[in-house]
């Protein structure tokens, strides 16, 4: 069968939902962070497939930006997680409830 745009988009949506589920349901901070990255990559996939099937480079250029920003964000986020781990001695998200009312 011919692989069309909608196949790529379906994969992208599935990846996004899996990432979302991981953010909401997993209890380890690093796993949550990885799921977040997965959501970003799903968006990347969608953009690239739109760029390929519409023969325009705009999507791919945007993906470059997203990858760069994601990398910077990972650096900062991991630094925050490490600092938090050092303070709390735990990477379990259920232990982080100081903002509770």
């Amino acid at each position, binding site marked *: 069968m011919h692989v069309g745009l909608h196949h790529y988009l379906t994969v992208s949506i599935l990846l996004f939902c899996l990432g*979302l589920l991981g*953010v*909401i349901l997993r209890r380890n901070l690093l796993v949550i962070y990885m799921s977040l990255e997965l959501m970003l990559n799903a968006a990347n996939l969608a953009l690239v497939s739109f760029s390929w099937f519409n023969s325009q480079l705009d999507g791919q250029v945007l993906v470059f930006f997203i990858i760069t920003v994601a990398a910077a964000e990972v650096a900062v986020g991991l630094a925050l997680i490490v600092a938090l781990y050092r303070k709390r001695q735990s990477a379990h998200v259920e232990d*982080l*409830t100081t903002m*509770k*009312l």
Partner: protein
Amino acid sequence: MKYESLPWLILFLPLLSAAVITLFTLRSKVVSSLISIGAIVAGFVLTLAFIGANGFQPAVTETAVSWLAVGNLQVDLGLKLDTLSLMMTLIVTGVGGAIHIYSYGYMRADRSMARFFACMSLFTFSMLGIVLANNFLFMFIAWELVGVSSYLLIGFWFERPSASDAAKKAFITNRLGDFGFLAGILLLWTLLGSLNFSNLQATLHDNPGALGTSAALAGLLIFCGAMGKSAQFPLHVWLPDAMEGPTPVSALIHAATMVAAGVYMLCRTVFLFEHNPAALQVIAYIGGFTALLAALIAVQQNDIKRILAYSTLSQLGYMIMAVGLSGPTPAMFHLTTHAFFKALLFLGAGSVIHGLHEEQDIWKMGGLKKHMPVTFWTFIIGTLALSGVPPFSGFYSKDSILAVALEQKSYLLFAVGVFVAALTTFYMFRLFFVAFLGEPRNEKAKHAHESPWVMTLPLVVLAVFAVIGGFIGITNHYAAQFAAAPETLSVAQQAFEPLHNLLPMLLGLGAVAAGLIAAYTLYHHTATDPLPAKLGGLATAMRNKFYFDELYEATFIRAHDFIAAVMDWIDRWIIQGACIGLVRGGTDLAGRMLRLVQTGNLQTYAFLFVLGVAVMLYLVLVK
């Protein structure tokens, strides 16, 4: 009219004195008392000067400053200067002046003497306000001020609980009467469109039926004010308790002037009652009943001031009865002579109390004739005047009241009047024999001393007036105000006036003789009171004031307390509990529910983001 500003000066000097004492001289007893005495004596002198220049019926009878003009309500701060108000001003400033001078001696040892004189000056101002007012509103304001002064003076020794309770009782009972009074004033304004006495008189003169069916109601409501202020039944309960105040207060306020304000007000508004026989009947019978009730109670009282207080109630009953019998002239005549001899009696009682170091029970006195001669002689003059023995002033005024009762063919009230005259003589001579004659019954009585001249001089002056009051032309002045065809009687004619109506005079004298003989038989040289043994239950009832206070306590006070308790319950449980509680609880519940969202859990927040995005997408794509 000459010296137009004099009446304003007479009215406002005491107010100025009260203000100056309160603001500046409260620490100095002598200066405060001199300011106060100066204000009232100056008022007396100025009144004499004014009357000397203008006579009793000045050419212009009103002077006014416009005070309140709202819509068609026009109220002036005005003074009405006719015989009635000028005579009353003389009484207030004259008798009041004597009492102020007496108070200088009586209150000497009291540390709050300055406050006393400030309150007395406030009272003088308010009383002059009532007497000189030319419209109902000004009179009502002064009426309330007099009540305030009375409250301040009855409760002068406020650290004593009985005194502050008595002050409250007086003020609250007066307010009940004033409620009716105010309703009457409003009714008159609604029906007749003015509050000024002259306007009202002219309106009713031109159109006697102007009040229509509300005539009796308006009259009776106005009378409510007199009932409260002049302590008529059923609002009589405050006057005996008012004896908690210092004796000069009892003399000035509760004998000579304030309680007479009710009678004065009825005489001032006599035009309202002229075509109002129903209201007049009620007034006359209430007056007669009060006279009888008070006289009966006085027969068994043992405190010298209470006896005099009930005597005042009884004489006020006479005056009100006279007004109800369409006799304002006899009523005002009796008011004037009563001011003289009742003030004299109270000041004499004060002299006795002062000399015996605060002893007020007559059964602990006795034999005061040799220790306190001036007090003794002035007291017997006052007693004779009050009992109505000729040729003292009380005889003439009481006789004129009995004559008017007979003239109006009101035989029941005439009989009541005669009987009360007998009772009056009886209880006054009971007081006299027990307190002044015989042997001293107690250590304090043995060592009694006469009062200083500053206290005995006013006694002598008042005694002189009590003696000559029948002949100096008081009736002439009042008749000029009230009677249709007044005649001016000379001194000799006034002296022999009662002989024109033989029946009232003879019955009156017979009553006096009966009372005197009964008092002599029972009370001359006795150690204890023989009457309770003879009369048993009746005597106990008399001593306990016929249980009126207990009756009011059981009915009105209880009902009032019950209503207050119910309102407290409503306030606490319904308004505070239910309504406010509902709002508070609701807000609290909403807050708690919203707080559940803030879990502090990262993943909850992420989930809520996702929900939000989903809702937005739905709204954008599907709608």
